[in-house]
């Protein structure tokens, strides 16, 4: 596999190191001269100096044969342009972009640049997971695969409390993949009983969320 990484900040540099360690062929493009020189001492020919939104710089890095393009500059417009050009001009099938400002996520979606990862969003999810004030947490979205994983607190008096997993009237296209109880987690079997206070991880098709959560929310 050949990966082209654009942006040699903390994310880009560490990602490049990890990919190299896994045996992946990588080129890292950095536009700041001082950063480039520092990384050149460590990574040598892997790092190229240039503006990764210029076509000739991308071509010099061999974007035409890239299997993966990773846009992790600190500028969202640059990341959008890089992915757009990689996809539409150079027919790169796989690309991943960083969203620096979560408010710009709408533009990545508008221009169909997916997946786009935002560190802010990822940390926010971890906070939601760690702080049990939230009834429902989105743990993972896999839009390409049409799957989501959510975490739900089982409320006192809800329809699911006291039932075995196999008795739950979960909609077609959803399954309980894990139960978190007493500081531990386990994979349930059909006869595992769900109690109020448990947290359950459910894997589901997008769009089923409200049907699934209805089972675990307190009756109104």
């Amino acid at each position, binding site marked *: 596999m050949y990966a082209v990484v654009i942006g040699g900040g903390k994310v880009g540099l560490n990602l490049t190191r990890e990919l190299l360690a896994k045996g992946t062929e990588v080129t890292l493009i950095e536009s700041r001269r001082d950063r480039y020189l520092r990384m050149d001492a460590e990574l040598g020919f892997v790092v190229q100096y240039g503006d990764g939104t210029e*076509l000739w710089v991308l071509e010099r890095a061999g974007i035409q044969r890239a299997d993966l393009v990773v846009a992790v500059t600190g500028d*969202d417009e640059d990341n959008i342009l890089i992915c757009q050009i990689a996809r539409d001009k150079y027919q790169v099938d796989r690309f991943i972009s960083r969203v620096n400002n979560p408010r710009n996520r709408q533009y990545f979606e508008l221009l169909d640049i997916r997946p786009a990862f935002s560190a802010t969003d990822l940390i926010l999810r971890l906070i939601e997971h760690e702080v049990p004030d939230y009834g429902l947490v989105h743990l993972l979205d896999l839009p390409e695969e049409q799957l989501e994983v959510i975490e739900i607190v089982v409320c006192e008096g809800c329809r699911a409390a006291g039932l075995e997993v196999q008795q739950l009237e979960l909609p077609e296209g959803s399954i309980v993949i894990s139960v978190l109880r007493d500081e531990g987690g386990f994979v349930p079997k059909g006869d595992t009983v769900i109690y109020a206070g448990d947290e359950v991880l459910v894997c589901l098709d997008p769009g089923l969320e409200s049907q699934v959560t209805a089972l675990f929310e307190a009756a109104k």
Partner: protein
Amino acid sequence: MSFVLIVGSGRVGSTVARNLLAAGHEVSVLDGDPLSHERLDAGQDSTWEGAGGRFTIGQAIERDALVEAGIENADVFIASTNGDNTNLTIAQIAQKMFNVPRVMVRVMDPARAEWYSAQGLETICPTSYAVQMFEKALELPKEGS
């Protein structure tokens, strides 16, 4: 008369803004730097607002700023900030999110200007014009002839 929104009030943006206003169009300018407003007033008999112009301070990429500057009613959108990638991104936002009928975008890099022009954006590349002017002045033969 049409309503023109110009994002980026540098030398190009501010001059186009003034000329459009003088020609009787409704003009709104958006720029992140309050000082850029002075460019619109410099050497004029009246202030920009006094002459009927609109000015909004805000980041080009911020949806709220674009709305405040009137993008929802714009007939023409001109992206003329000093960043090519910002211009190309906001031009596509104007086109695809706000359905502005005519979108024009300033792109300094000829390669990106050419490619995005082929993708359906109305790009203007000052670099290409400058090259042509020099070549004409030096009486170089035209490329391909």
